[in-house]
């Protein structure tokens, strides 16, 4: 074989970058899925940056969007390349060493596209083998060649004219790409879909609002299920051994006026466990029955092992928007533990089955009803983090109350379907925090206060740090054991994104999107 032939072979073999087996056991220098691993820990196993040396962290490179946009990307890092999503639904591959662009795929948006109830953004891509997958605002799933950005296939997921959009990063497993859908403020009927990674053919769909004859349909009145919402707009997690996909389901529609939809409104504000092969519902757990506060359960479901109620179990935990932290048995969905992790004034507590015991008078009203948390919740889409060694769960908390209002509402396809809104309290009465919870109990271990309720997620590291961001542009590192501030820098732009960790040339780095820039830091 000639030298050219060998070189070509090496180049070709580099194509199979991220096979499924590698996603199941990710190497520490890569960041291969939205949350870092299938268990959604958003944890970097790298340990070169420590409490002792983090003060020496410096900016290594910056990538600029060059346009005003909500930059919420959580990058994927594999084999010297960083793949990011850019608003509205573009994908860019960057040289990991320098931040220089390798290719960009641009998605032209239809002129009549609307995003009803959220900004034009995209939180990330997924990579499997040599293909990059992205969901688009006009509700397509697109597969791109990882080496060139060329389109491999482009499948319609839903009709954007009805308010369906995709903002979440897909989840890839085996030979399928799983996606959720946005549009919960437009009276959509939500779902979780799986597509064949090679052909783009849809393999299964799970409707989050059950139709006539299906389990849970009885929890809706009349035709209200047709416009029942139940969006699935944040990436779920996956247990390869159980072959179960865990996906959070959003609020029922209309959001704040529940008069037309009496009942529990399944499977809104629930966690659903779906068979990865068939999409069949294995179990569900509803956090907020008949929600009228827009408390989507689309927070990240985090998987770990813990001893709860007397025996070791495989559990799934969620810090819910409704201000309770829940631990469930992830094989069965059994409720194990629920703890308040932020101020709430709507429930006396949870009963033995995990169902909230609500406080009368906390419903939205024409004159306004003051309730904690605000409609943006005690936390939101931004990611928590789980530290497997310290067994701590870190969550960005929004301590904020609001007056909830209820108004008339009528459904018109492709328009707002909300039935109210909120009036938040003055800024200086609200604050934010990073809280460390005992993962198995939800008991608070420490708190680090923030000036305002944050929109940034956190990432813990094996080096003993927790990285986070603030609305005012601060990127910072806390001691994972104590919450002590160890390092911070002003990035100059609002941080509405999650940190990721990876290696460049074997050296640990962290990255965060801030303002219209992606910034990489290292020692």
């Amino acid at each position, binding site marked *: 074989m000639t030298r050219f032939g060998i070189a070509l072979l090496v180049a070709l073999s580099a194509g199979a970058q991220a096979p499924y087996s590698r996603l199941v056991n990710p190497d520490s220098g890569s960041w291969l899925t939205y949350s870092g691993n299938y268990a959604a820990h958003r944890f970097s196993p790298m340990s070169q940056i420590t409490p002792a040396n983090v003060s020496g962290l410096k900016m290594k490179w910056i990538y600029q969007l060059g346009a*005003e*946009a*909500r930059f919420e990307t959580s990058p994927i890092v594999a084999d010297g390349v960083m793949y990011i999503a850019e608003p509205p639904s573009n994908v860019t591959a960057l040289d990991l060493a320098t931040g220089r662009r390798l290719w960009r795929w641009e998605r032209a*948006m239809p002129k009549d*596209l*609307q*995003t*009803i*109830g*959220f*900004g*034009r*953004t995209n939180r990330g891509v997924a990579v499997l083998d040599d293909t990059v997958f992205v969901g688009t605002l006009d509700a397509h799933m697109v597969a791109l060649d990882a080496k060139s950005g060329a389109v491999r296939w482009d499948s319609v997921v839903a009709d954007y004219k009805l308010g369906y959009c995709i903002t979440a990063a897909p989840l890839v497993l085996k030979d399928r790409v799983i996606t959720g859908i946005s549009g919960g*403020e437009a009276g959509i009927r939500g779902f979780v879909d799986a597509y064949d990674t090679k052909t783009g053919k849809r393999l299964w769909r799970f409707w989050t609002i059950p139709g006539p004859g299906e389990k849970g349909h009885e929890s809706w009145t009349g035709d209200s299920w047709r416009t029942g919402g139940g969006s699935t707009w944040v990436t779920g997690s996956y247990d390869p051994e159980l072959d179960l996909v865990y996906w959070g389901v959003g609020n029922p529609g209309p*959001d*704040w006026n529940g008069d037309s939809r009496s009942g529990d409104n399944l499977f809104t504000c629930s966690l659903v466990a779906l068979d990865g092969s068939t999409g069949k519902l294995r179990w569900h757990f509803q956090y907020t029955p008949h929600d009228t506060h827009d408390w989507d359960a689309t927070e990240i479901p985090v998987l770990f092992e813990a001893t709860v109620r007397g025996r070791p179990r495989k559990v799934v935990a969620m810090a819910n928007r409704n201000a309770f932290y829940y631990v469930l048995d992830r094989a069965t969905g059994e409720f194990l533990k629920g703890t308040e992790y932020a101020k709430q004034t709507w429930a006396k507590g949870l009963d033995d089955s995990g169902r909230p015991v609500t406080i009368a008078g906390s419903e939205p009203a024409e004159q*306004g009803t003051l309730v904690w948390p605000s*409609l*943006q919740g005690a936390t939101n889409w931004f990611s928590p983090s789980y530290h497997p060694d310290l067994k701590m769960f870190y969550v960005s908390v929004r301590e904020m109350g*609001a*007056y909830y*209002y209820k*108004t*008339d*509402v*009528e459904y*018109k396809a*492709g*328009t*707002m379907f*909300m*039935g*109210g*809104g*909120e*009036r*938040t309290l*003055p*800024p*200086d009465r609200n604050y*934010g925090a990073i809280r460390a919870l005992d993962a198995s109990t939800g008991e608070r271990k420490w708190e680090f*206060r*923030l*000036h305002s309720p944050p929109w940034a997620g956190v990432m813990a590291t094996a080096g003993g740090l927790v990285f986070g961001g*603030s609305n*005012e*542009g*601060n990127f*910072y590192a806390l001691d994972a054991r104590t919450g002590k*501030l160890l390092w*911070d820098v*002003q990035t100059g732009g609002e941080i509405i994104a999650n940190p990721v960790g990876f290696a460049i040339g074997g050296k640990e780095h962290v990255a965060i999107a801030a303002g219209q820039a992606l910034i990489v830091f290292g020692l």
Partner: protein
Amino acid sequence: MLQFVLLLAAQAQDPLAHVPAADIERGKRLYGMNCGGCHGMDGNGGSGPPLTRAKFKRAADNAALIELITSGIATAGMPPSWHLLPDGPRQIAAYVRSLGEVKSVPLPGDVDRGKQAYRSSACSGCHIVNGEGIGIGPELTGIGAMRTPASLLRSLTHPGDPPSPAFMPVKVTTREGEQLRGIRVNEDSFTIQIKDARNRFHSFRKDRLESLDKGGSWMPAYDKLPPEQLQDIVAYLATLRGGQ
């Protein structure tokens, strides 16, 4: 005559020049269904910016406001309102305008006496009106268009209550014992920037401070002034509708 014609032409071009009360009421209902979720039910903001102001950055005039409501702002995530055409966007715009409008109403006080009282009470020692005065306190040139008479009276008798996030008095004590009072001009989780009484800027890291107190007001309470004089000052302040 020409001026009169021009005035008529301008009014003809203003799509909100003569909006019936019923349209504003319908605009309020449509606002609640379509806009309040993001901009707040009272227009004071939420995930979207507050609308309780007389001027908007992205809409120079009423026609532009209607167009903005109709088409939305794609980059900011504001959806269009084509489904409300032909009348809905105009009705919403009329209601939104009413949120930021402090109407001139007959007040019991005397404007000229109020102006005199403003001067004799040394208000211009801290406030600027039309370029006159010293600017430690909030600029008052357009205060009459932004605040209701009741709110102005409250600020005279109970300054700092409720506190204004945009004008927050702070007092810091450093670990070295240095003390500084001023107005917060910016703040994040780790630092605070302060303007002192001499209009000088200071910046502190919070972890270098012994204490950081916010709230209150530098302005003395004028609750001992005769009620008639307070009404005179309010009447004067209500006439200040320039600048903005």
